[in-house]
């Protein structure tokens, strides 16, 4: 059940996107996310979606794999959609009893949902195509100027990468503990919210204890392998920008310009549902 979460996981493949410098990918994703907020109509979203689809296509990460990753956030998406759809005042489109759908509500609901989808899709392309280790390395390098201000960038990056490494382990652990407690007659399915929360204690306590045990074991294993923080550490894959990255940067800039220009209505394209 919970083993099927693919969101935030790495998809092993050797595509051009996979081989890009992680720093560039992080910057690119950031730029993409920012540009999404410039978009003012559906055509703009269409352009963004098209570009993103292109990237996904090139990255060779299967669409169904990415879609499956959406499952855990489906609830949030549906919730935001409904909230916007039903609660926004404006020109009434449709009414049944206390339920009213307004034109503004529909527009807003569609907009927010599409934006959220594109945000998550875009961010997940980053994690699907970048090994957690290189991702955190990228962050570490991008943030390294901050270390001069006393921010422990290496430690933060290391923590992030370890968190990613142990997500599947902890998910497996949770599954196992739940089953073990079910076998002892625990009940996770009935009762009201409060009761259900209390019933999770037999799962949460061992889970925390195990997480601490894992952390202790891991800390010891890392120390045994001469880990002593980021100082003096070298890397198997040193980061160097290449021609590929330059080309990708050009395309990113092009994308940003395109979105910006379109949002200002400076393109010979119609604006649909402009906000």
């Amino acid at each position, binding site marked *: 059940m919970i083993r099927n979460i693919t969101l935030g996981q790495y998809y*092993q493949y050797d595509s051009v996107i996979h081989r890009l410098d992680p720093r560039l990918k992080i910057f690119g994703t950031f730029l993409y996310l920012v540009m999404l907020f410039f978009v003012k109509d559906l055509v703009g979203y269409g352009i963004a979606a098209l570009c993103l689809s292109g990237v996904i296509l090139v990255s060779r990460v299967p669409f169904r794999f990415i879609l499956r990753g959406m499952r855990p956030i489906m609830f949030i998406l549906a919730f935001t959609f409904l909230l916007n759809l039903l609660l926004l005042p404006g020109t009434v489109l449709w009414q049944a009893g206390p339920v009213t759908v307004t034109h503004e509500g529909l527009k807003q609901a569609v907009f927010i949902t599409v934006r959220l989808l594109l945000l998550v899709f875009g961010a997940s392309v980053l994690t699907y195509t970048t*090994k957690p*280790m290189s991702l955190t390395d990228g962050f570490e390098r991008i943030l390294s100027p901050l270390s001069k201000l006393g921010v422990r960038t290496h430690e933060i990056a290391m923590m992030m990468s370890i968190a*990613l490494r142990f997500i599947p382990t902890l998910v497996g652990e949770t599954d196992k503990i739940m089953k073990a407690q079910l076998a002892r007659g625990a009940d996770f399915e009935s009762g009201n919210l409060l009761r259900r929360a209390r019933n999770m204690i037999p799962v949460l306590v061992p889970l925390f204890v195990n997480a601490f045990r894992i952390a202790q074991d*891991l800390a010891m*294993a890392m120390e*045994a*392998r*001469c880990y002593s923080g980021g100082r003096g550490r070298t890397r*198997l894959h040193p980061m160097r920008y290449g021609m590929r990255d330059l080309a990708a940067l050009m395309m990113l800039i092009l994308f940003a310009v395109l979105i910006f220009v379109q949002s200002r209505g400076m393109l010979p394209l119609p604006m649909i549902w402009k906000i």
Partner: protein
Amino acid sequence: MIDFNGVSCRYKREYAGEGALPVTALDDVSFHIPRGSFIALVGRNGSGKSTAARCMNALQLPSGGTVLVDGADTSDDEMVLTIRQKAGMVFQNPDNQLVSSVVEDDVAFGPENLGLHPDEIRKRVDRAMKAAGIYDRRLDSPDELSGGQKQRVAIAGVLAMEPECIIFDEATAMLDPAGRSAVMEMIRRLRERGTTVVLITHFMEEAAEADEILILKEGKILSRGTPAEIFAVPDLISEAGLDLPAAVKIRNLLRQRGADIPDRVLDIKSLAEWIAGNCPENVPG
């Protein structure tokens, strides 16, 4: 290679309602592990084996006495990294000792910490992965590997640091028979390369392969000797809460029935050979 000189490890453990109780994990232990040898460290759970292992890697410092690794004192802060590079360690739980989500990055973790040049890291990582037989899984995530394979990744991670000694802290305990024999095969190959091996284990069949067995009981050395010597004294084994290898049990029963089987016969294969060689029809003349 490794010297324990009067090593004691005492600490206090908190018990709810009863306050702190003193625990003695090691009590005035002295021994020497020669370079290139293969030593098995056995004993009950809580006999101090793992504490001893941690002392060999400067993961734990003794409260009394000194531990020397290749002449360097583990309590010398300057030497800690050198010691850890020289005496690598493989732990029990295959999951909890892999740092990275990609096999080759994990193997590179040690050399990266040593601050080696990327080209050198690459060379060492490839060599170590080949030696551990996981080269073709180098781009996979550890989550896709079996327990035995994960343990071989851990071994590769240690090998990449080019240690002179590897300590296996119950590294076979959580594996299935296939995984265990893969790790034991690795250990045999390490010996051929002249690497010093310290093996902590509950499996007497594994201990029987060592040059020497060191039995710990309640933080003290109960006995030390070759497997042939150790397993020749059943009382010693039961006093330590251990067990005889299956082949030795059969051997002893045959001895009771009058067979004159030598002490060095410790495993099924050599027992079968001895029987075949001493069978009436097979005796020449």
